[in-house]
Protein backbone atom coordinates (compact mmCIF):
# COMPACT_ATOMS: atom_id res chain seq x y z
CA UNK A 1 0.00 0.00 0.00
CA UNK A 2 2.71 2.42 0.96
CA UNK A 3 4.66 1.36 -2.07
CA UNK A 4 1.61 2.49 -4.02
CA UNK A 5 2.11 5.99 -2.70
CA UNK A 6 5.55 6.12 -4.19
CA UNK A 7 4.39 4.78 -7.52
CA UNK A 8 1.61 7.34 -7.40
CA UNK A 9 4.03 10.25 -7.37
CA UNK A 10 5.55 9.08 -10.63
CA UNK A 11 2.06 8.34 -11.89
CA UNK A 12 0.94 11.89 -11.22
CA UNK A 13 3.88 13.16 -13.24
CA UNK A 14 3.24 11.02 -16.25
CA UNK A 15 -0.54 11.29 -16.19
CA UNK A 16 -0.86 15.04 -16.02
CA UNK A 17 1.34 15.03 -19.06
CA UNK A 18 -0.25 11.96 -20.48
CA UNK A 19 -1.31 13.42 -23.85
CA UNK A 20 2.22 14.51 -24.50
CA UNK A 21 4.67 12.22 -26.26
CA UNK A 22 8.20 11.59 -24.98
CA UNK A 23 9.75 14.81 -26.27
CA UNK A 24 7.09 16.91 -24.60
CA UNK A 25 7.35 14.94 -21.37
CA UNK A 26 11.03 15.81 -21.23
CA UNK A 27 10.20 19.49 -21.73
CA UNK A 28 7.62 19.37 -18.95
CA UNK A 29 10.06 17.49 -16.73
CA UNK A 30 12.54 20.30 -17.26
CA UNK A 31 9.92 22.88 -16.33
CA UNK A 32 9.02 20.77 -13.34
CA UNK A 33 12.60 20.50 -12.17
CA UNK A 34 13.04 24.24 -12.54
CA UNK A 35 9.95 24.72 -10.41
CA UNK A 36 11.68 24.78 -7.02
CA UNK A 37 8.47 24.55 -5.02
CA UNK A 38 7.13 21.50 -6.81
CA UNK A 39 10.50 19.82 -6.77
CA UNK A 40 10.99 20.31 -3.04
CA UNK A 41 7.45 19.05 -2.47
CA UNK A 42 8.16 15.93 -4.49
CA UNK A 43 11.43 15.37 -2.61
CA UNK A 44 9.72 15.68 0.78
CA UNK A 45 7.04 13.19 -0.25
CA UNK A 46 9.69 10.83 -1.59
CA UNK A 47 11.59 11.08 1.68
CA UNK A 48 8.48 10.37 3.74
CA UNK A 49 7.68 7.37 1.59
CA UNK A 50 11.19 6.03 2.00
CA UNK A 51 10.79 6.45 5.74
CA UNK A 52 7.51 4.57 5.67
CA UNK A 53 8.63 1.78 3.34
CA UNK A 54 11.92 1.10 5.12
CA UNK A 55 10.57 1.62 8.63
CA UNK A 56 11.60 -1.88 9.82
CA UNK A 57 15.14 -1.41 8.49
CA UNK A 58 15.62 2.11 9.79
CA UNK A 59 14.46 1.54 13.33
CA UNK A 60 16.23 -0.71 15.79
CA UNK A 61 13.18 -1.63 17.89
CA UNK A 62 9.56 -2.45 17.26
CA UNK A 63 7.28 0.58 17.82
CA UNK A 64 5.10 -1.32 20.28
CA UNK A 65 7.99 -2.71 22.40
CA UNK A 66 7.65 -1.34 25.92
CA UNK A 67 10.86 -0.80 27.89
CA UNK A 68 9.80 0.70 31.19
CA UNK A 69 13.41 1.09 32.32
CA UNK A 70 14.18 3.72 29.68
CA UNK A 71 11.08 5.94 29.78
CA UNK A 72 11.12 9.56 28.70
CA UNK A 73 14.72 9.54 27.50
CA UNK A 74 15.73 12.66 25.55
CA UNK A 75 17.31 12.10 22.11
CA UNK A 76 20.48 10.02 22.47
CA UNK A 77 22.50 7.55 20.42
CA UNK A 78 20.36 4.51 21.20
CA UNK A 79 17.13 6.46 20.68
CA UNK A 80 17.82 9.24 18.12
CA UNK A 81 14.48 10.96 18.79
CA UNK A 82 14.09 9.92 22.42
CA UNK A 83 11.48 7.66 24.02
CA UNK A 84 7.95 8.12 25.36
CA UNK A 85 6.52 7.51 28.82
CA UNK A 86 6.37 3.75 28.21
CA UNK A 87 9.96 3.64 26.97
CA UNK A 88 8.96 3.08 23.34
CA UNK A 89 11.41 4.38 20.73
CA UNK A 90 9.96 7.56 19.22
CA UNK A 91 11.76 7.19 15.89
CA UNK A 92 10.35 3.71 15.37
CA UNK A 93 6.87 4.91 16.26
CA UNK A 94 7.09 7.86 13.87
CA UNK A 95 8.44 5.69 11.03
CA UNK A 96 5.67 3.12 11.46
CA UNK A 97 3.18 5.93 12.01
CA UNK A 98 4.18 7.32 8.60
CA UNK A 99 2.86 4.11 7.06
CA UNK A 100 -0.54 4.62 8.63
CA UNK A 101 -0.76 8.36 8.02
CA UNK A 102 0.35 8.24 4.38
CA UNK A 103 -1.87 5.26 3.64
CA UNK A 104 -4.91 6.93 5.17
CA UNK A 105 -4.22 10.07 3.14
CA UNK A 106 -3.78 8.16 -0.09
CA UNK A 107 -6.74 5.80 0.19
CA UNK A 108 -9.14 8.40 1.55
CA UNK A 109 -8.36 10.60 -1.44
CA UNK A 110 -8.72 7.61 -3.73
CA UNK A 111 -12.25 7.14 -2.42
CA UNK A 112 -13.15 10.82 -2.66
CA UNK A 113 -11.74 11.14 -6.19
CA UNK A 114 -13.66 8.07 -7.40
CA UNK A 115 -16.95 9.35 -6.00
CA UNK A 116 -16.26 12.88 -7.21
CA UNK A 117 -15.41 11.66 -10.72
CA UNK A 118 -18.56 9.56 -10.91
CA UNK A 119 -20.95 12.26 -9.72
CA UNK A 120 -19.16 15.09 -11.50
CA UNK A 121 -19.12 13.24 -14.81
CA UNK A 122 -22.79 12.24 -14.63
CA UNK A 123 -23.79 15.73 -13.58
CA UNK A 124 -21.76 17.50 -16.26
CA UNK A 125 -22.59 15.14 -19.08
CA UNK A 126 -26.32 14.68 -18.65
CA UNK A 127 -27.17 18.11 -17.26
CA UNK A 128 -30.81 18.93 -16.61
CA UNK A 129 -32.53 17.07 -13.80
CA UNK A 130 -29.56 14.77 -13.09
CA UNK A 131 -27.28 17.78 -12.75
CA UNK A 132 -29.74 19.58 -10.52
CA UNK A 133 -30.18 16.57 -8.24
CA UNK A 134 -26.47 15.83 -7.88
CA UNK A 135 -25.43 19.45 -7.41
CA UNK A 136 -28.05 20.06 -4.74
CA UNK A 137 -26.86 16.90 -3.00
CA UNK A 138 -23.34 18.33 -3.15
CA UNK A 139 -24.62 21.59 -1.68
CA UNK A 140 -26.26 19.70 1.17
CA UNK A 141 -23.08 17.73 1.86
CA UNK A 142 -21.11 20.96 1.89
CA UNK A 143 -23.45 22.40 4.52
CA UNK A 144 -22.33 19.89 7.15
CA UNK A 145 -19.37 20.96 9.23
CA UNK A 146 -17.27 18.08 7.91
CA UNK A 147 -15.07 17.54 10.92
CA UNK A 148 -17.98 17.25 13.33
CA UNK A 149 -19.76 14.92 10.94
CA UNK A 150 -16.67 12.71 10.93
CA UNK A 151 -16.47 12.90 14.74
CA UNK A 152 -20.09 11.86 15.08
CA UNK A 153 -19.83 8.99 12.61
CA UNK A 154 -16.56 7.66 14.02
CA UNK A 155 -17.81 7.79 17.60
CA UNK A 156 -20.86 5.77 16.59
CA UNK A 157 -18.94 3.15 14.63
CA UNK A 158 -16.10 1.05 15.89
CA UNK A 159 -13.03 3.13 15.19
CA UNK A 160 -10.54 1.38 12.95
CA UNK A 161 -8.39 2.39 10.02
CA UNK A 162 -10.90 1.27 7.38
CA UNK A 163 -13.68 3.35 8.92
CA UNK A 164 -11.37 6.37 9.16
CA UNK A 165 -10.37 6.14 5.52
CA UNK A 166 -13.94 5.59 4.35
CA UNK A 167 -15.35 8.44 6.41
CA UNK A 168 -12.71 10.92 5.29
CA UNK A 169 -13.22 9.85 1.68
CA UNK A 170 -17.01 10.04 1.88
CA UNK A 171 -16.97 13.59 3.24
CA UNK A 172 -14.44 15.16 0.91
CA UNK A 173 -15.58 14.29 -2.63
CA UNK A 174 -17.73 17.38 -3.22
CA UNK A 175 -14.90 19.61 -4.42
CA UNK A 176 -13.78 17.01 -6.93
CA UNK A 177 -17.35 16.55 -8.16
CA UNK A 178 -17.74 20.28 -8.84
CA UNK A 179 -14.36 20.43 -10.53
CA UNK A 180 -15.07 17.46 -12.79
CA UNK A 181 -18.53 18.78 -13.63
CA UNK A 182 -17.08 22.10 -14.74
CA UNK A 183 -14.41 20.38 -16.85
CA UNK A 184 -16.94 18.05 -18.48
CA UNK A 185 -19.33 20.91 -19.19
CA UNK A 186 -16.70 22.58 -21.33
CA UNK A 187 -15.24 19.37 -22.78
CA UNK A 188 -18.56 18.01 -23.98
CA UNK A 189 -18.91 21.00 -26.32
CA UNK A 190 -15.77 19.95 -28.14
CA UNK A 191 -15.97 18.42 -31.59
CA UNK A 192 -14.36 15.15 -30.68
CA UNK A 193 -17.31 14.36 -28.43
CA UNK A 194 -19.78 15.10 -31.23
CA UNK A 195 -17.58 13.03 -33.53
CA UNK A 196 -17.68 10.10 -31.12
CA UNK A 197 -21.45 10.46 -30.80
CA UNK A 198 -21.82 10.66 -34.55
CA UNK A 199 -19.98 7.38 -34.93
CA UNK A 200 -22.40 5.69 -32.56
CA UNK A 201 -20.29 5.47 -29.39
CA UNK A 202 -22.42 4.94 -26.28
CA UNK A 203 -22.75 7.58 -23.54
CA UNK A 204 -20.91 5.41 -21.06
CA UNK A 205 -17.90 5.02 -23.35
CA UNK A 206 -17.91 8.70 -24.25
CA UNK A 207 -17.70 9.59 -20.56
CA UNK A 208 -15.08 6.99 -19.67
CA UNK A 209 -12.86 7.09 -22.73
CA UNK A 210 -13.26 10.59 -24.09
CA UNK A 211 -14.27 12.94 -21.31
CA UNK A 212 -12.78 11.70 -18.03
CA UNK A 213 -9.18 11.24 -19.28
CA UNK A 214 -9.27 14.81 -20.61
CA UNK A 215 -10.49 16.12 -17.25
CA UNK A 216 -7.81 14.37 -15.18
CA UNK A 217 -5.27 17.22 -14.98
CA UNK A 218 -7.08 19.43 -12.45
CA UNK A 219 -8.28 16.33 -10.63
CA UNK A 220 -4.69 15.31 -9.93
CA UNK A 221 -3.93 18.76 -8.59
CA UNK A 222 -6.91 18.66 -6.27
CA UNK A 223 -6.11 15.07 -5.25
CA UNK A 224 -2.58 16.04 -4.26
CA UNK A 225 -3.89 18.89 -2.14
CA UNK A 226 -6.58 16.54 -0.83
CA UNK A 227 -4.00 14.09 0.48
CA UNK A 228 -2.54 16.85 2.63
CA UNK A 229 -5.97 17.64 4.04
CA UNK A 230 -6.72 13.96 4.67
CA UNK A 231 -3.45 13.46 6.57
CA UNK A 232 -4.34 16.45 8.72
CA UNK A 233 -7.84 15.14 9.38
CA UNK A 234 -6.53 11.71 10.37
CA UNK A 235 -3.97 13.29 12.70
CA UNK A 236 -6.64 15.44 14.31
CA UNK A 237 -8.94 12.46 14.81
CA UNK A 238 -6.17 10.36 16.31
CA UNK A 239 -5.13 13.27 18.49
CA UNK A 240 -8.64 13.41 19.86
CA UNK A 241 -8.43 9.70 20.58
CA UNK A 242 -11.09 8.51 18.13
CA UNK A 243 -8.84 7.86 15.15
CA UNK A 244 -6.21 5.17 14.96
CA UNK A 245 -6.32 3.31 18.26
CA UNK A 246 -3.15 2.74 20.33
CA UNK A 247 -0.91 0.81 20.51
CA UNK A 248 -0.78 1.10 16.67
CA UNK A 249 1.16 4.32 16.11
CA UNK A 250 -0.04 7.16 13.93
CA UNK A 251 1.32 10.70 13.94
CA UNK A 252 -1.85 11.96 15.56
CA UNK A 253 -1.96 9.54 18.49
CA UNK A 254 1.77 9.95 19.18
CA UNK A 255 0.96 13.63 19.66
CA UNK A 256 -1.88 12.69 21.96
CA UNK A 257 0.53 10.64 24.12
CA UNK A 258 2.88 13.62 24.18
CA UNK A 259 0.19 15.97 25.41
CA UNK A 260 0.40 14.68 29.00
CA UNK A 261 4.14 15.35 29.32
CA UNK A 262 4.36 18.53 27.28
CA UNK A 263 6.36 20.33 29.98
CA UNK A 264 9.00 17.67 30.53
CA UNK A 265 9.54 15.99 27.15
CA UNK A 266 9.77 18.54 24.32
CA UNK A 267 10.94 15.89 21.82
CA UNK A 268 7.67 14.03 22.04
CA UNK A 269 5.66 16.91 20.63
CA UNK A 270 8.25 18.56 18.40
CA UNK A 271 9.11 15.61 16.14
CA UNK A 272 5.62 14.28 15.27
CA UNK A 273 4.42 17.88 14.89
CA UNK A 274 7.24 18.66 12.49
CA UNK A 275 6.62 15.49 10.50
CA UNK A 276 2.93 16.32 9.99
CA UNK A 277 3.81 19.90 9.14
CA UNK A 278 6.52 19.00 6.61
CA UNK A 279 4.50 16.26 4.91
CA UNK A 280 1.43 18.44 4.49
CA UNK A 281 3.65 21.23 3.20
CA UNK A 282 5.24 18.79 0.75
CA UNK A 283 1.89 17.73 -0.70
CA UNK A 284 0.75 21.33 -0.92
CA UNK A 285 3.95 22.35 -2.72
CA UNK A 286 3.57 19.50 -5.19
CA UNK A 287 -0.08 20.37 -5.76
CA UNK A 288 0.76 24.01 -6.45
CA UNK A 289 3.55 22.96 -8.78
CA UNK A 290 1.27 20.68 -10.77
CA UNK A 291 -1.28 23.47 -11.01
CA UNK A 292 1.33 25.82 -12.46
CA UNK A 293 2.38 23.16 -14.92
CA UNK A 294 -1.20 22.58 -16.00
CA UNK A 295 -1.84 26.28 -16.42
CA UNK A 296 1.22 26.60 -18.58
CA UNK A 297 0.09 23.69 -20.72
CA UNK A 298 -3.31 25.26 -21.22
CA UNK A 299 -1.78 28.60 -22.15
CA UNK A 300 0.48 26.94 -24.67
CA UNK A 301 -2.10 24.56 -26.04
Amino acid at each position, binding site marked *: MVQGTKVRVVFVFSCTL*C*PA*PCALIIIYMKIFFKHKLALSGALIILLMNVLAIFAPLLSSTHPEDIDVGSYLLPPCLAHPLGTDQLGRDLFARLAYGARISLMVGFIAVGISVSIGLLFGALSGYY*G*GAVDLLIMRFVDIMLCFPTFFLILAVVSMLESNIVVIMAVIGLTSWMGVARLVRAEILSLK*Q*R*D*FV*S*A*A*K*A*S*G*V*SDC*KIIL*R*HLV*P*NAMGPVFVSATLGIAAAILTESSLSFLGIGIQPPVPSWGNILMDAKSCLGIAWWMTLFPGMLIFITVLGYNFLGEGLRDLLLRREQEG
Partner: protein
Amino acid sequence: MLGIVGESGCGKTMTGLSLTNLLPDSKLKIESGKIIFAGEDIVSLDEAQLRALRGKEIAYVFQEPATALNPVLTIGEQIREVVKLHCKHIPKDAINGFIIEHLEDVGIHLANEKLNVYAHQLSGGEKQRIMLCMAVIARPKLLIADEPTTAVDVTIQSQIIKLLHKLKKEYGLSIFLISHNLAVVADLSDYIGVMYAGRIVEFAKAGIVLEKPLHPYTQGLLNCLPELQTGRGFKSINGEVPKFDNLPSGCSFSPRCVKAQKRCFLKMPPMFKTALNQEVRCWLYSGS
Protein backbone atom coordinates in the same frame (compact mmCIF):
# COMPACT_ATOMS: atom_id res chain seq x y z
CA MET B 1 -24.00 13.60 -54.15
CA LEU B 2 -25.94 16.52 -52.78
CA GLY B 3 -24.39 19.85 -51.98
CA ILE B 4 -25.89 22.35 -49.58
CA VAL B 5 -24.69 25.95 -49.74
CA GLY B 6 -25.57 29.10 -47.89
CA GLU B 7 -24.08 31.75 -45.67
CA SER B 8 -23.02 31.15 -42.08
CA GLY B 9 -26.01 30.83 -39.79
CA CYS B 10 -28.37 29.54 -42.48
CA GLY B 11 -29.00 26.26 -40.73
CA LYS B 12 -26.82 24.07 -42.93
CA THR B 13 -25.04 22.39 -40.03
CA MET B 14 -28.28 22.03 -38.07
CA THR B 15 -29.81 20.25 -41.05
CA GLY B 16 -26.84 17.90 -41.19
CA LEU B 17 -26.93 17.20 -37.46
CA SER B 18 -30.64 16.56 -37.40
CA LEU B 19 -30.18 13.88 -40.06
CA THR B 20 -28.91 11.60 -37.30
CA ASN B 21 -30.80 13.36 -34.56
CA LEU B 22 -27.60 14.77 -33.10
CA LEU B 23 -28.80 18.28 -32.29
CA PRO B 24 -26.37 19.69 -29.74
CA ASP B 25 -28.69 21.01 -27.06
CA SER B 26 -31.29 18.96 -25.27
CA LYS B 27 -33.60 21.94 -25.69
CA LEU B 28 -33.40 21.67 -29.47
CA LYS B 29 -35.77 19.10 -30.88
CA ILE B 30 -37.11 18.09 -34.20
CA GLU B 31 -40.64 19.38 -33.83
CA SER B 32 -42.32 18.02 -36.88
CA GLY B 33 -41.66 16.31 -40.17
CA LYS B 34 -39.99 13.10 -41.15
CA ILE B 35 -36.46 12.17 -42.11
CA ILE B 36 -36.64 9.10 -44.28
CA PHE B 37 -33.46 7.07 -44.60
CA ALA B 38 -33.56 3.71 -46.39
CA GLY B 39 -37.30 3.52 -45.84
CA GLU B 40 -37.16 4.29 -42.12
CA ASP B 41 -38.14 7.46 -40.33
CA ILE B 42 -35.13 8.55 -38.29
CA VAL B 43 -37.18 10.88 -36.11
CA SER B 44 -39.13 7.92 -34.71
CA LEU B 45 -36.06 5.85 -33.78
CA ASP B 46 -35.02 5.50 -30.14
CA GLU B 47 -31.54 6.23 -28.81
CA ALA B 48 -30.24 2.64 -29.15
CA GLN B 49 -31.43 2.35 -32.73
CA LEU B 50 -29.91 5.73 -33.51
CA ARG B 51 -26.55 4.62 -32.10
CA ALA B 52 -26.63 1.57 -34.33
CA LEU B 53 -27.33 3.84 -37.27
CA ARG B 54 -24.70 6.46 -36.50
CA GLY B 55 -21.34 5.52 -37.90
CA LYS B 56 -22.68 2.31 -39.41
CA GLU B 57 -25.20 3.68 -41.91
CA ILE B 58 -24.70 7.42 -41.68
CA ALA B 59 -21.25 8.80 -40.93
CA TYR B 60 -20.23 12.32 -40.15
CA VAL B 61 -17.16 14.42 -40.90
CA PHE B 62 -16.76 17.64 -39.00
CA GLN B 63 -15.47 20.99 -40.14
CA GLU B 64 -12.51 21.29 -37.80
CA PRO B 65 -10.26 18.22 -37.90
CA ALA B 66 -8.03 19.71 -35.21
CA THR B 67 -10.72 19.48 -32.56
CA ALA B 68 -12.60 16.45 -33.84
CA LEU B 69 -9.87 14.07 -32.65
CA ASN B 70 -9.51 13.31 -28.96
CA PRO B 71 -6.20 14.76 -27.73
CA VAL B 72 -5.51 12.00 -25.20
CA LEU B 73 -6.14 8.96 -27.39
CA THR B 74 -3.90 7.74 -30.19
CA ILE B 75 -5.21 7.67 -33.72
CA GLY B 76 -5.22 3.89 -33.63
CA GLU B 77 -7.30 3.74 -30.46
CA GLN B 78 -9.88 6.09 -31.89
CA ILE B 79 -10.29 4.26 -35.18
CA ARG B 80 -10.34 0.94 -33.33
CA GLU B 81 -13.31 2.19 -31.30
CA VAL B 82 -15.34 2.62 -34.48
CA VAL B 83 -14.19 -0.70 -35.94
CA LYS B 84 -15.10 -2.58 -32.77
CA LEU B 85 -18.52 -0.96 -32.73
CA HIS B 86 -19.50 -1.39 -36.33
CA CYS B 87 -17.29 -4.01 -38.00
CA LYS B 88 -17.95 -6.96 -35.75
CA HIS B 89 -17.05 -9.44 -38.49
CA ILE B 90 -13.37 -8.44 -38.31
CA PRO B 91 -11.46 -10.80 -35.98
CA LYS B 92 -9.55 -9.11 -33.18
CA ASP B 93 -6.05 -9.82 -34.47
CA ALA B 94 -6.94 -8.51 -37.92
CA ILE B 95 -8.22 -5.12 -36.76
CA ASN B 96 -4.87 -3.36 -37.01
CA GLY B 97 -4.28 -4.61 -40.52
CA PHE B 98 -7.80 -3.58 -41.46
CA ILE B 99 -7.22 -0.07 -40.14
CA ILE B 100 -3.85 0.30 -41.87
CA GLU B 101 -5.42 -0.77 -45.15
CA HIS B 102 -8.04 1.95 -44.85
CA LEU B 103 -5.54 4.57 -43.72
CA GLU B 104 -3.57 3.88 -46.88
CA ASP B 105 -6.81 4.13 -48.83
CA VAL B 106 -7.28 7.72 -47.70
CA GLY B 107 -3.69 8.55 -48.58
CA ILE B 108 -1.92 8.39 -45.22
CA HIS B 109 1.75 7.55 -45.63
CA LEU B 110 3.51 5.23 -43.16
CA ALA B 111 0.11 4.22 -41.87
CA ASN B 112 1.40 1.65 -39.38
CA GLU B 113 3.43 4.32 -37.59
CA LYS B 114 0.52 6.74 -37.53
CA LEU B 115 -1.52 4.30 -35.42
CA ASN B 116 0.46 5.19 -32.33
CA VAL B 117 0.62 8.96 -32.63
CA TYR B 118 -1.58 11.60 -31.09
CA ALA B 119 -3.65 14.13 -33.00
CA HIS B 120 -1.37 17.09 -32.35
CA GLN B 121 1.52 15.32 -34.08
CA LEU B 122 -0.32 15.34 -37.40
CA SER B 123 -0.85 18.06 -40.00
CA GLY B 124 -4.30 19.48 -40.70
CA GLY B 125 -4.61 17.56 -43.95
CA GLU B 126 -3.63 14.29 -42.30
CA LYS B 127 -6.16 14.85 -39.54
CA GLN B 128 -8.95 15.43 -42.03
CA ARG B 129 -7.92 12.29 -43.93
CA ILE B 130 -8.05 10.34 -40.69
CA MET B 131 -11.50 11.74 -39.93
CA LEU B 132 -12.60 10.59 -43.38
CA CYS B 133 -11.05 7.18 -42.76
CA MET B 134 -12.92 6.87 -39.46
CA ALA B 135 -16.12 7.88 -41.20
CA VAL B 136 -15.95 5.43 -44.10
CA ILE B 137 -14.29 2.45 -42.42
CA ALA B 138 -17.64 0.92 -41.46
CA ARG B 139 -18.87 1.33 -45.07
CA PRO B 140 -21.77 3.69 -44.37
CA LYS B 141 -24.32 4.39 -47.08
CA LEU B 142 -24.38 8.12 -46.41
CA LEU B 143 -21.56 10.46 -45.48
CA ILE B 144 -22.43 13.86 -44.10
CA ALA B 145 -19.47 16.15 -44.70
CA ASP B 146 -19.86 19.42 -42.84
CA GLU B 147 -17.48 21.89 -44.47
CA PRO B 148 -14.71 19.29 -44.76
CA THR B 149 -12.38 21.69 -46.54
CA THR B 150 -12.96 24.92 -44.67
CA ALA B 151 -10.25 24.49 -42.05
CA VAL B 152 -7.47 23.32 -44.36
CA ASP B 153 -5.44 25.35 -46.82
CA VAL B 154 -6.11 25.52 -50.54
CA THR B 155 -3.76 22.79 -51.77
CA ILE B 156 -5.07 20.38 -49.16
CA GLN B 157 -8.60 21.42 -50.08
CA SER B 158 -8.23 20.13 -53.60
CA GLN B 159 -6.65 16.92 -52.30
CA ILE B 160 -9.56 16.36 -49.91
CA ILE B 161 -12.03 17.01 -52.70
CA LYS B 162 -10.25 14.45 -54.88
CA LEU B 163 -10.31 12.03 -51.98
CA LEU B 164 -14.06 12.50 -51.52
CA HIS B 165 -14.49 11.76 -55.24
CA LYS B 166 -12.45 8.60 -54.89
CA LEU B 167 -14.27 7.41 -51.77
CA LYS B 168 -17.61 8.05 -53.41
CA LYS B 169 -16.65 5.87 -56.35
CA GLU B 170 -14.87 3.08 -54.48
CA TYR B 171 -17.15 2.77 -51.48
CA GLY B 172 -20.42 3.58 -53.24
CA LEU B 173 -21.08 6.44 -50.84
CA SER B 174 -23.81 9.00 -51.05
CA ILE B 175 -22.43 12.28 -49.79
CA PHE B 176 -24.31 15.13 -48.19
CA LEU B 177 -21.87 17.99 -48.58
CA ILE B 178 -22.32 21.13 -46.56
CA SER B 179 -20.28 24.14 -47.58
CA HIS B 180 -20.36 27.87 -47.97
CA ASN B 181 -17.89 27.56 -50.78
CA LEU B 182 -19.75 27.32 -54.08
CA ALA B 183 -16.63 26.22 -55.92
CA VAL B 184 -16.24 23.15 -53.71
CA VAL B 185 -19.90 22.23 -54.06
CA ALA B 186 -19.84 22.82 -57.81
CA ASP B 187 -16.88 20.49 -58.15
CA LEU B 188 -18.40 17.59 -56.22
CA SER B 189 -22.17 17.66 -56.32
CA ASP B 190 -24.78 16.20 -58.63
CA TYR B 191 -27.51 18.29 -57.08
CA ILE B 192 -27.26 21.59 -55.26
CA GLY B 193 -29.61 22.94 -52.64
CA VAL B 194 -29.26 26.59 -51.70
CA MET B 195 -30.29 27.30 -48.17
CA TYR B 196 -31.39 30.55 -46.61
CA ALA B 197 -32.65 31.10 -43.06
CA GLY B 198 -33.41 27.44 -42.50
CA ARG B 199 -35.20 26.85 -45.81
CA ILE B 200 -34.14 25.49 -49.16
CA VAL B 201 -34.68 28.36 -51.58
CA GLU B 202 -33.39 26.74 -54.74
CA PHE B 203 -32.86 23.12 -55.67
CA ALA B 204 -31.74 21.62 -58.98
CA LYS B 205 -29.01 19.73 -60.85
CA ALA B 206 -25.65 21.29 -60.11
CA GLY B 207 -24.98 22.52 -63.65
CA ILE B 208 -28.34 24.23 -63.92
CA VAL B 209 -28.01 26.09 -60.65
CA LEU B 210 -24.57 27.36 -61.53
CA GLU B 211 -25.41 28.40 -65.09
CA LYS B 212 -28.93 29.66 -64.65
CA PRO B 213 -29.51 30.58 -61.05
CA LEU B 214 -33.09 31.74 -60.56
CA HIS B 215 -33.38 32.85 -56.95
CA PRO B 216 -31.98 36.33 -56.29
CA TYR B 217 -30.07 34.88 -53.33
CA THR B 218 -28.33 32.27 -55.49
CA GLN B 219 -27.53 34.95 -58.03
CA GLY B 220 -26.11 37.05 -55.25
CA LEU B 221 -23.98 34.18 -53.96
CA LEU B 222 -22.58 33.52 -57.43
CA ASN B 223 -21.83 37.20 -57.85
CA CYS B 224 -19.75 37.02 -54.70
CA LEU B 225 -17.20 34.79 -56.41
CA PRO B 226 -14.41 36.90 -57.86
CA GLU B 227 -13.68 36.23 -61.51
CA LEU B 228 -10.11 36.31 -62.69
CA GLN B 229 -10.80 36.71 -66.42
CA THR B 230 -13.08 39.69 -66.29
CA GLY B 231 -11.19 41.31 -63.48
CA ARG B 232 -14.44 41.86 -61.60
CA GLY B 233 -13.74 42.09 -57.87
CA PHE B 234 -15.76 40.84 -54.89
CA LYS B 235 -19.38 41.72 -54.64
CA SER B 236 -21.40 41.12 -51.57
CA ILE B 237 -25.02 40.77 -50.54
CA ASN B 238 -25.98 43.61 -48.26
CA GLY B 239 -27.24 42.91 -44.80
CA GLU B 240 -26.99 39.68 -42.89
CA VAL B 241 -28.88 36.46 -42.23
CA PRO B 242 -31.80 37.11 -39.89
CA LYS B 243 -31.86 35.47 -36.46
CA PHE B 244 -34.24 32.57 -36.18
CA ASP B 245 -36.23 34.12 -33.39
CA ASN B 246 -36.68 37.28 -35.43
CA LEU B 247 -37.56 36.23 -38.96
CA PRO B 248 -39.09 38.93 -41.18
CA SER B 249 -42.67 38.44 -42.28
CA GLY B 250 -43.05 37.16 -45.82
CA CYS B 251 -40.03 35.84 -47.69
CA SER B 252 -37.13 35.76 -45.25
CA PHE B 253 -34.76 37.06 -47.92
CA SER B 254 -36.97 40.03 -48.81
CA PRO B 255 -35.21 42.70 -46.70
CA ARG B 256 -31.94 42.01 -48.55
CA CYS B 257 -33.38 41.23 -51.97
CA VAL B 258 -32.73 43.66 -54.83
CA LYS B 259 -35.77 42.41 -56.75
CA ALA B 260 -38.20 42.43 -53.88
CA GLN B 261 -41.78 43.35 -54.66
CA LYS B 262 -44.65 44.23 -52.41
CA ARG B 263 -45.98 40.71 -51.90
CA CYS B 264 -42.51 39.43 -50.98
CA PHE B 265 -42.88 41.24 -47.68
CA LEU B 266 -46.30 39.77 -47.00
CA LYS B 267 -46.20 36.05 -47.66
CA MET B 268 -43.56 33.32 -47.77
CA PRO B 269 -43.48 31.91 -51.30
CA PRO B 270 -43.89 28.14 -51.84
CA MET B 271 -41.51 26.11 -54.01
CA PHE B 272 -42.21 26.71 -57.70
CA LYS B 273 -41.14 24.16 -60.27
CA THR B 274 -39.78 25.42 -63.58
CA ALA B 275 -39.50 23.72 -66.94
CA LEU B 276 -35.94 22.48 -66.31
CA ASN B 277 -37.06 20.68 -63.13
CA GLN B 278 -35.54 23.48 -61.16
CA GLU B 279 -37.24 24.26 -57.89
CA VAL B 280 -37.17 27.75 -56.51
CA ARG B 281 -38.80 29.53 -53.59
CA CYS B 282 -39.44 33.00 -55.06
CA TRP B 283 -42.52 34.93 -56.15
CA LEU B 284 -40.73 36.02 -59.35
CA TYR B 285 -41.41 32.58 -60.77
CA SER B 286 -44.98 32.16 -59.62
CA GLY B 287 -46.18 32.21 -63.25
CA SER B 288 -43.98 29.41 -64.56
